[in-house]
């Protein structure tokens, strides 16, 4: 089969048409700042829409991915809602000063102006990289779900306990987070991105059971409404799963995303492997991706990560073949490629090269 373009390849995988090979996207986002102007700080990258966009453009030039997904970090919304965000020079930013000190504080949240702060940077930056890359690859914005945003701004431990002791206060705050997300979805719809990738961080059985997940994020409101809005606004609805033991029945079978990326957690009994995910039918109607150990990008050799990619290609192609699913799997990292200055660029390239070589599908 002749070599397809990046977009043709992904569309073939989504529609279960004949594709030349598996598509690939080591989730290289913040790490690509090392390709901009000889390497810039995380702070500069996360505060400047042009530098944010340039990292994705340079990443595409360097590695030839099939996708570009505009993940910044998971403290963007919390910071714009007033939480203190610690921004080290070369470390992923994180919330170090949550703002909820009492139950009453849950009712004080207001949707911020999305044109300002890092919400504005990510929207503008996404537009800038989409302007350049949208004719080459599948582009997507990246957005934190309401429960993730609330746990970041209020503190996860606090929110989890208040789910029991003060559920109505938590729901009031979630309504504001959802309203914030609605604004962001509409903002992303104007960037030209083909898809919008949601981070529903807490949709896993290490953290929440079905009952809690359904009540505080689930299909009936919050996530359900936002997923529908995403599609209505003309973007493919995607999910990036961040944890072990994911709620696959809810997040894939009920939510029905177009693309679903799986985290890497081989040590937790019960977390499905790539093969098991396919065998259990989760790739039947969804383009699933994963699950290369992100640490290999720092600590592995080119030989090691090439072998891991080769093995993964073989594993998923065999499983896909048995279910008549062709190329419906993305060879991806199981979480973001560590945005660390020590991450090996050659290992990112090795994953793409190995997928080109070992991901070819025989029809």
């Amino acid at each position: 089969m002749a070599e397809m373009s990046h977009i043709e390849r992904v569309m073939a995988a989504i529609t279960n048409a004949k594709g030349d090979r598996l598509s690939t996207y080591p989730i290289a986002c913040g790490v690509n700042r090392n390709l901009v102007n000889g390497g810039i700080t995380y702070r500069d990258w996360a505060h400047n829409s042009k530098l944010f966009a340039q990292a994705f453009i340079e990443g595409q030039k360097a590695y030839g991915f099939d996708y570009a997904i505009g993940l910044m970090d998971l403290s963007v919304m919390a910071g714009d809602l007033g939480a203190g965000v610690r921004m080290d020079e070369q470390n992923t930013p994180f919330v170090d000063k949550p703002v909820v000190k009492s139950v009453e504080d849950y009712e004080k949240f207001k949707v911020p102006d999305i044109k300002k702060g890092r919400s504005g940077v990510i929207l503008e930056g996404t537009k800038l990289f989409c302007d350049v890359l949208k004719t080459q690859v599948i582009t997507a914005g990246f957005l934190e779900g309401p429960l993730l945003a609330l746990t970041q701004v209020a503190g996860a431990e606090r929110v989890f306990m208040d789910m029991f002791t003060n559920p109505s206060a938590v729901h009031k705050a979630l309504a504001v987070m959802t309203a914030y997300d609605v604004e962001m979805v509409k903002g992303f719809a104007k960037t030209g991105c083909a898809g919008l990738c949601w981070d529903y961080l807490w949709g896993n059985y290490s953290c929440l059971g079905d009952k809690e997940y359904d009540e505080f994020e689930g299909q009936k409101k919050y996530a359900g409404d936002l997923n529908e809005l995403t599609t209505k606004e003309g973007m493919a609805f995607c999910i990036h799963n961040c944890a072990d033991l994911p709620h696959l029945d809810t997040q894939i079978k009920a939510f029905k995303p177009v693309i679903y990326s799986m985290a890497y957690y081989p040590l937790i009994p019960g977390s499905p492997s790539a093969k098991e995910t396919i065998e259990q039918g989760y790739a039947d109607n969804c383009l699933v991706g994963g699950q290369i150990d992100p640490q290999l990008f720092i600590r592995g050799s080119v030989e090691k990560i090439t072998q891991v990619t080769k093995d993964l290609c073989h594993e998923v192609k065999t499983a896909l073949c048995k279910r008549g699913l062709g190329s419906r799997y993305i060879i991806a990292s199981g979480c973001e490629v560590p945005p660390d200055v020590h991450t090996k660029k050659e290992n990112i390239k090795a994953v793409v090269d190995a997928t080109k070589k070992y991901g070819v599908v025989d029809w």
Partner: protein
Amino acid sequence: MSKEAILNKLSDAVVGGKVDLAKEGAKEALAAKIDALDAINNGLVKGMSIIGDKYAARQVFLPQVLMSAHTMYAGLDLLLPAIPKSAMASMKKAATAVVEGDVHDIGKNIVKTMLTAGGFDVTDLGKDVPISTIVSETKAKKWDALALSTLMTPTMDGMKAAVDGLIENGYRKNVKVCIGGAPTSPAFAKEIGADHRDANAQDCAAWLKEVF
């Protein structure tokens, strides 16, 4: 109220995440002159063990575990001061910390809870803890076990620095070092010279209990 009824009350309070009930039960235990250590082990800790088993079996989840831990500590606050110092001295000492540069501490807090429930005298150094503090305090306080956590990749090297620091100050052979957190692995533990890596808090506490 009988001793058995008070112990059951303490256990039930922890299982149900009822802080007021745990405080009430702890006061009743002291008033009834029940040995404080007995009340802790056969009341509060028994309840926490039940919750730990239910969490492992996915019958309860993180919010319930956190509520139960919060409840156990409410009871401990009242019962611990009543334990004779001689009894405390025989307990193994452990410390927990999230290494410098990271503030994600839910996992560390659950490890702290499970170690406490496992009979360790636990000092929690908190989150974003400077490596120099971890190293110097471990030696100064003569801790038997050190449990380090991080959820972020760039801060993993802090764990290695802590192990190296303990070698440098000559205390490494006296302390078992466990690591945990999503990006860590048994291979990483071996690479940096830590003794153990576990995927969950219960297994970490069980491993340390076995070692000692």
